[in-house]
């Protein structure tokens, strides 16, 4: 051919001509709007928003803790000692480095006469408190007025919860140990609150002088002394902090103190945030994966709608691979929009939370745009879109141009070409790698990946099984069931996408419901029969026998256990310093901070020797220790190894004589480490006692024991087990609420996918409905056929969800939470029944709309 037209009338460069061809064409295609991509956008945006929100909030919290480290810690550095004050050389070391302030904290009983008594988390502060930040009280009093001794009573600031619990008001007095304490103000803000962790009782803040007056500070009593150090500016940089920590460890190796710096003010809290963030991120990822089904459905519908354009492009010279890349570019542009929405929500959340609730939060939050975390959420969104879009897009490669010449009655559904399967495999591998690499606990991430993959595979098999079964069943004679069966297995049936979205949704619901009910049961209903009603702490050694006798008088037939108790920090394990030991995640707590330890002549109840043997009752040789077997295994300890603990500022080395299995859930007294009695001969210590009623106790008995014990032994701290569990339950409830919040995103995604799948099905069945109505089928008959179809699919998905959710929750409860599992089916059955009803309802609502259409207008276009 010749004759290229002459004298081209050049127009200005085409607006998009500078862009690469694929991007240029994809942008042109996007002019058609986002029709059919609503579910796609919502699913990706929701999932990314969930992940980005969780990680942004988490980063803002850790950033807040890091920036506010000085306030949280009450200084640049904090040196904590348990059961003893700093020795002369220790105090001299601290004084030589900077300005020192002291805070002592302990649990104690506040007695309000006839109004009863309550456990309080007591904090005794010195004159300079707070050295960093501000103490806010109501009324706001200067420290001198707030804490000073006046008219025979020391002043105190009190958590309003104690006022409510004991029916007290500001100005009333309580007794703590041997001191009278006047409650002069309500505590509003305590700058260093979170460094003290979760308390079992309300805060009572008094002065150091008041603490001395209580008489509660006895040798061995469980008082934590924290020395906060304000360093001169020249020393308060990172280098200075590290150097002083090193100097403290080398100059005073036996101090046994826990040293924290403002750069790492609350490592345990930060670690817990990180751990919880991972869990919520996995829930967010579940939302993304569930939404992925919606992505795949949307892309499949998109490719179907674009068959003519795809064939046209191929007829104009575009190879199949180029066409796929063009539409992949378009899909990824839409995904990028969805991801941008999700990221914007996630990035904004910390600012919104701080703006709305910042002043109410007990923990500092420093809203930041967490770029690395947002980057990870971006990758999650992009990879999920890619994983679920590749296969349906890959099929576009083989859409024949011949479809432009003749109608394709039944387009063949074939596997995409190998290159797309390889690309799919690589994207799945990248998504798995991201989930594992970005995880705090890779074992949990791998379990999640396995569970997700298993669920997808199983649900696919379930769908194929249902379709196969429907195909093989004899044809019913009645029209409605015959239509329902045919709809279940016909080409292009709703079955795979409906079973997948509904099955995943119900599995998630059942899993959450069972975890929820098991946690509630464990915390509120199923206290072990032999669980004690009370723990009594800080029983002075010299009053131990008298207190036990007193308890026997008060509690009658109750069983009373009493053991000596002190606190100690592990220093070395098998000759290796603890700092060099890599402990598995679930037992690392043993190496963090100090642990309760005891000594005993005989093996404690509730434990079984599994290796080695117990020492003779009159053993007098080298110090021996009995170690809990699972923890010993995790730490790589075996019989004969030596461990060193620092107790009361002395390093004590003992040899492991035996390993014990401990039944922790009995809530009886037990310890990770039990030493031979000669190890701590003569060391000051207190006792720990429990009271266990054979048939449990009632509230009146508990109140009577609390009151009389507080009056007769004011030095002893009483912890009612039910109250302690309630405190734990409160925390767990808040965590469960957070999990429910994140999970609801996954459920919304699941519902969106379901609605999308049903809507796609509606388009296909418009044809059936119009033809059948033309042939005389009534709406009622068609509706009953569709209801039967949705009901059968819903039922099959519900059965799968119950089974898979049961197995998933069993593993989470027993393996991850180390709790006992109970199959409480009522909640699970309720949620799955609701899910089936929602499916049938959603399906029929859409179908009714179709059935109400007049056939004529559609027949013209069929």
């Amino acid at each position, binding site marked *: 051919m010749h*004759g290229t037209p002459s004298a*081209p009338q050049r*127009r200005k460069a085409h607006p998009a001509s500078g862009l690469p*061809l694929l991007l240029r064409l994809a942008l042109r295609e996007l002019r058609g709007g986002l029709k059919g991509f609503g579910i796609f956008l919502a699913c990706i945006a929701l999932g990314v928003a969930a992940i980005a929100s969780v990680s942004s909030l988490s980063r803002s919290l850790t950033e807040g803790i890091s920036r506010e480290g000085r306030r949280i810690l009450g200084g640049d550095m904090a040196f904590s000692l348990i059961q003893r004050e700093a020795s002369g050389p220790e105090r001299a070391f601290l004084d030589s480095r900077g300005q020192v302030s002291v805070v002592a904290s302990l649990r104690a009983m506040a007695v309000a006469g006839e109004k009863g008594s309550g456990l309080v988390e007591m904090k005794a502060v010195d004159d300079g408190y707070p050295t960093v930040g501000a103490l806010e009280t109501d009324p706001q009093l200067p420290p001198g007025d707030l804490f000073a001794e006046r008219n025979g009573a020391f002043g105190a600031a009190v958590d309003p919860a104690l006022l409510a619990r004991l029916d007290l008001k500001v100005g009333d007095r309580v007794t703590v140990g041997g001191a009278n304490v006047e409650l002069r103000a309500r505590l509003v803000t305590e700058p260093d609150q979170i460094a003290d962790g979760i308390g079992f009782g309300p805060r009572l803040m008094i002065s150091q002088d008041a603490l001395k007056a209580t008489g509660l500070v006895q040798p061995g009593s469980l008082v934590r002394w924290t020395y906060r150090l304000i360093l001169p500016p020249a020393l308060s940089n990172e280098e200075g902090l590290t150097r002083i920590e090193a100097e403290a460890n080398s100059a005073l190796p036996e101090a046994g103190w826990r040293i924290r710096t403002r750069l790492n003010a609350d490592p345990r809290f930060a670690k817990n945030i990180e751990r919880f963030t991972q869990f919520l991120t996995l829930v967010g990822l579940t939302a993304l994966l569930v939404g992925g089904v919606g992505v795949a459905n949307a892309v499949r519908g998109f490719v179907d709608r674009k068959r003519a354009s795809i064939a*046209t492009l191929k007829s*104009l*010279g575009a190879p199949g*691979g180029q066409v796929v890349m063009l539409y992949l570019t378009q899909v990824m542009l839409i995904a990028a929009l969805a991801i941008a929405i999700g990221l914007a929500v996630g990035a904004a959340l910390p600012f919104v939370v701080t703006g709305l609730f910042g002043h109410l939060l007990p923990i500092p939050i420093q809203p930041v745009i967490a770029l690395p975390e947002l980057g990870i959420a971006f990758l999650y969104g992009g990879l999920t879109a890619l994983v679920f879009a590749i296969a349906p897009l890959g099929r576009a490669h083989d859409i024949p*141009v011949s479809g432009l*010449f003749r109608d394709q009655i039944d387009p063949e559904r074939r596997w995409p070409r190998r290159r797309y399967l390889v690309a799919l495999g690589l994207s799945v591998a990248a998504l798995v790698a991201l989930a594992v690499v970005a995880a705090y606990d890779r074992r949990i991430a791998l379990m999640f990946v396995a569970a997700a993959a298993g669920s997808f595979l199983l649900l696919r098999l379930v769908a194929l099984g249902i379709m196969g079964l429907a195909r093989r069943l004899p044809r019913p004679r009645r029209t409605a069931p015959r239509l329902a069966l045919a709809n279940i297995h016909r080409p292009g049936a709703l079955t795979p996408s409906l079973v997948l979205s509904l099955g995943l949704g119900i599995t998630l619901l059942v899993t959450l419901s069972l975890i929820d009910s098991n946690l509630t049961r464990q915390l509120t209903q199923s206290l072990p029969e032999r669980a004690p009603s009370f723990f009594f702490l800080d029983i002075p050694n010299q009053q131990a026998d008298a207190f036990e006798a007193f308890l026997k008088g008060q509690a009658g037939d109750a069983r009373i256990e009493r053991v000596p108790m002190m606190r100690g920090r592990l220093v070395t394990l098998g000759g290796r310093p603890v700092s060099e030991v890599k402990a598995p995640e679930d037992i690392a707590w043993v190496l963090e901070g100090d642990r309760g330890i005891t000594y005993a002549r005989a093996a404690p109840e509730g434990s079984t020797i599994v290796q080695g043997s117990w020492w003779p009752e009159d053993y007098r040789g080298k110090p021996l220790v009995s170690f809990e077997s699972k923890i010993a295994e995790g730490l790589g300890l075996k019989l004969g190894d030596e461990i060193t603990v620092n107790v009361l500022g002395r390093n004590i080395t003992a040899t492991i004589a035996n390993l014990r299995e401990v039944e922790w859930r009995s809530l009886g007294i037990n310890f990770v480490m039990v030493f031979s009695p000669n190890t701590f001969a003569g060391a000051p210590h207190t006792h720990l006692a429990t009271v266990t009623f054979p048939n449990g106790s009632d509230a009146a008995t508990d109140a009577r024991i609390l009151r009389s014990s507080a009056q007769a032994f004011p030095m002893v701290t009483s912890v009612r087990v039910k109250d302690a569990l309630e405190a734990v339950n409160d925390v767990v409830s808040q965590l469960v609420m957070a999990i429910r919040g994140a999970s609801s995103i996954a459920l919304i995604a699941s519902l969106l996918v379901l609605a999308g799948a049903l809507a796609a099905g509606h388009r296909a069945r418009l044809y059936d409905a119009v033809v059948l109505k033309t042939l005389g089928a009534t709406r009622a008959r068609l509706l009953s056929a569709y209801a039967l179809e949705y009901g059968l699919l819903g039922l099959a998905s519900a059965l799968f969800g119950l089974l898979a959710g049961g197995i998933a929750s069993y593993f989470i409860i027993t393996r991850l939470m180390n709790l006992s599992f109970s199959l409480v089916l009522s909640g699970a059955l309720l949620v799955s029944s609701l899910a089936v009803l929602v499916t049938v309802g959603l399906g029929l609502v859409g179908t009714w709309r179709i059935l109400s259409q007049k056939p004529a207008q559609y027949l013209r276009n069929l």
Partner: protein
Amino acid sequence: MKDKAIALHDVDLSLGRGAARVHILKGISLDVDRGEAIGLVGPSGSGKSTLLMTMAGLERPDSGKVIVDGTDLSGLDEDALARFRGRRIGIVFQSFHLVPTMTALENVALPLELAGQDDAFERAEVEMRAVGLGHRLHHYPAQLSGGEQQRVAIARAVVPNPAILVADEPTGNLDESTGQSIVDLLFALKRDRGATLVLVTHDLNLARLCDRTVRLRSGQVDGDGEGDGRADASSAVA
């Protein structure tokens, strides 16, 4: 065979699977000269469109040889076939098949863009003016009449200067007068550029405009005779 625009030798083609498999083309041999216009006619189901698609490399025969513009199509894989089509064959469809999200100009520029031509839009604009749509460059297909859409489709088919133009019922979706103007345009462009034109049609009057008419029946050539070739007498580009 090299000097033939299209040479088919003993082409057999079946479509469908299993019981639904239908033997469509049965041992067809056919040569088309360069610059020749042939009309493929025959009843529905006789294999006209399938033969056209086979000539355009859109269907692969089960057996036999298809040589187009000197290239044996059986030696090309899918991607090479697509590129070959983009360069050497222009296709005009009954239903136009413009990409709805692209303007008329962009639709015409598309094959040049796919072929990596830098001057795609300049050349497309020239073709748009050549088919009388210089004033509709930035309209979308939905904003054009059926006749205008088919003119855009023809401009798109000829813009890469293909050696062969194939058209499947190009007037099938148009009214009589619009159809006539499209036919005039198609033949004028074919004549001006010396391209080979293969036309599938039910319209015997249209077929007669061609140099040659090939009649198909049940997948076989039932008649091969000269047409009136009257189209070359009419000349105007609409």
